[in-house]
């Protein structure tokens, strides 16, 4: 059985950061329009990321010797939830801060850490995740991108797909086969640091159904990587990816994706006559938010203790993305219940954007079905 969650309130030191983040956001205000704020963690703004870095809020939990803030996972939680709730454009440094930097800290060589981590913490160096491929989505172990050792290091061939921000990042951490055969599954995979400016790399943006281009396809044609491109030990890629996903799956970003819409609707309700149906819907969503946030904080407490709560994180992500998807689904009905008359263009634009993009919430970072499989394993069913 998965252990029952233990409530964890934020320590006062972390809570104290909240007003500082709010002051920062006054100086660096996010977009005014709710439908732009709704794109928060797809919003790429290097100047914003650098300003955050200057403030010490990128790589906050990394040790100070690598330029980090030496802060706690709870400090980071407060900063993230404030940025996301405000709809700030966090996408540029997001992946480096959330998973690449902790990964490098844990598995990287000393020279990788010394060279990369300080620049990540400065908000200058951006990363993308090269896991998915055309033939390897949920079945990640079937990746066919291959890195063959040679006298200069590793020769990389293959392709990656859906790589968020590959066109605007400096490095990819790619999962590739470094030994054995294609059918070997989890064996023989490694994580490699790929400098995206190297010759032989082609990156093509893919436009999404809302008209935005955040993900890409990436082709590797005899890309020569140096020896020290290997992260961790050869053949340990699968275990490293699994550990990385615990960081990816439990944060406030799995709860707050549709907040811009919820806030916009609540503002609008205050202008019209809210009835008990509106109150009930709002009350349900607020109550779910409260419980999810407590669950997410309980995972943060485990991360802070150095644990890797892979399965509880999957549980929270499944509940969180369901909540995020229910927001546009429930609000469309609530708004439309009045017969299609609606006061604000901004509300309808935000509803339209959030509704059409909401399916991605339960795809990125592992699909709902895959997460439920993990939960079932945690419950002893597999």
């Amino acid at each position, binding site marked *: *059985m*998965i252990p*029952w*969650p*233990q*409530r964890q*309130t*934020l320590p006062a030191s972390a809570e104290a950061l*909240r007003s500082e983040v709010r002051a920062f956001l006054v100086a660096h205000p996010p977009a005014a329009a709710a439908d732009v704020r709704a794109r928060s963690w797809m919003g790429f703004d290097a100047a914003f990321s650098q300003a955050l870095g200057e403030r010490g809020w990128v790589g906050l939990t990394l040790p100070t010797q690598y330029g980090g803030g030496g802060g706690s996972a709870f400090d980071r939680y407060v900063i993230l939830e404030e940025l996301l*709730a405000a709809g700030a454009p966090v996408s540029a440094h997001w992946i480096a801060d959330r998973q690449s930097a902790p990964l490098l800290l844990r598995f990287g060589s000393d020279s990788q850490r010394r060279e990369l981590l300080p620049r990540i913490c400065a908000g200058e160096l951006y990363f993308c995740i090269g896991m998915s491929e055309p033939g390897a989505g949920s079945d990640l172990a079937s990746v066919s991108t291959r890195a063959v050792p040679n006298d200069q290091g590793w020769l990389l061939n293959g392709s990656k797909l859906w790589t968020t921000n590959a066109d605007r990042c400096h490095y990819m951490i790619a999962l590739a086969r470094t030994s054995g055969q294609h059918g070997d599954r989890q064996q023989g995979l490694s994580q490699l640091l790929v400098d995206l400016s190297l010759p032989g790399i082609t990156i093509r943006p893919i436009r999404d159904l809302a008209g935005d281009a955040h993900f890409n396809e990436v082709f590797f044609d005899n890309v020569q990587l140096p020896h020290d491109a290997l992260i961790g030990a050869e053949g340990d890629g699968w275990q490293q990816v699994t550990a990385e996903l615990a960081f990816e799956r439990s944060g406030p970003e799995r709860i*707050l994706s549709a*907040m811009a819409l*919820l*806030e916009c609707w*609540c503002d609008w*309700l*205050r202008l019209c006559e*809210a009835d*008990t149906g*509106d*109150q*009930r*819907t*709002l*009350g*349900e*969503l*607020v*109550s*779910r*938010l*409260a*419980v*999810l*946030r*407590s*669950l997410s904080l*309980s995972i943060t407490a485990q991360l802070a203790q150095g644990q890797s709560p892979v399965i509880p994180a999957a*549980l929270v992500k*499944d*509940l969180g993305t*369901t909540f995020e998807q229910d927001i546009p689904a429930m609000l469309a009905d609530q708004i439309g219940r009045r017969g299609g008359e609606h006061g604000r263009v901004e509300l309808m634009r935000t509803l339209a954007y959030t509704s059409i993009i909401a399916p991605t919430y339960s795809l990125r970072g592992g699909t709902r*079905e895959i*997460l*439920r*499989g993990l*939960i*079932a394993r945690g*419950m*002893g*069913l*597999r």
Partner: protein
Amino acid sequence: MTDSVFLDSIQPLFQDIHAHFTSQPDLNPQAAWDELVQSGFLRLLLPESAEGAGLSVAEALPVLMAAGYWALPLPYVETALLYAALPDALADAIDGNLALAVGTCGPGEPAQPLRLGLHCLDALVTAKDGGITVAPVSGDVEQGWRLQGEVTPLSQVLDIRLLGTAAECLQLAGAMQRVLELTVDYANTRQQFGRPIGKYQALQQQISVMTGHCHSAVMAAQLAAGGMQRSNTGLSLDHHRVAAACGMIKAACQPVVSTAHAVHGAIGVTEEYELHHYTRRLLAGRLAGGSESRWFEQVGQACLDSGASVFDFTLANLS
């Protein structure tokens, strides 16, 4: 959720009452209540000066949830919380170790505890004309309860309905823990088509969703407990936090019941198998004191009235 010392010491009694109630069934409610009195656990939330254990509601939560986990048919949680909430006003009841519950008792109407299926009850605490009254009752689970004696008004101010609902909800969260265990055990044991049924992905996905509901409910119970602050003079309730938590626990009841029964097949609907004690409780408990919609409406209205953003309302009131 600390102090498992307390849980460890009372659990054997809860388990014993459970056995007499479900498998044997030869429960003597008064004898069971007397054993609870003997254990001293009715005073779990009373100050040490009143011979209590002085626990906060959050500290006592494992014990309170365990009463639901073991399907205790007695108003143990209700009584412990009411003693803690009104220690002075209920001094006589506390001295007499009376079994209390929140309910309604209009003139000429039967006395109705908010929770159905209680096997033992001495008095109801009711909300009346903006105040609180204590109404002594007699009766039994089959015949129902009747007013028996004088109704005493109390001068204290307390949202008694919220307290009664919370008492029920903490137990429902415990009951959901048990239902999830029963369901997972059964899925791992029962074989069809040559394999345990839990190996089939369709059931795995349903049980995963059920797990999510149960974990939400358990977290909500902790949120509620955190919103019930005990002092030596009584309990103060953070209305929004407790209401939101109760709403979440109630909202989990129906889906948990549905999946538990689906996984159990026909055995789950027999009198002999213990599942129905829990699923009946969850279905009734969802309604007791008002279903999730009632509580969600109140939370939604409070959020609108606050004038704050949804996020700020959540931080200020529900964290």
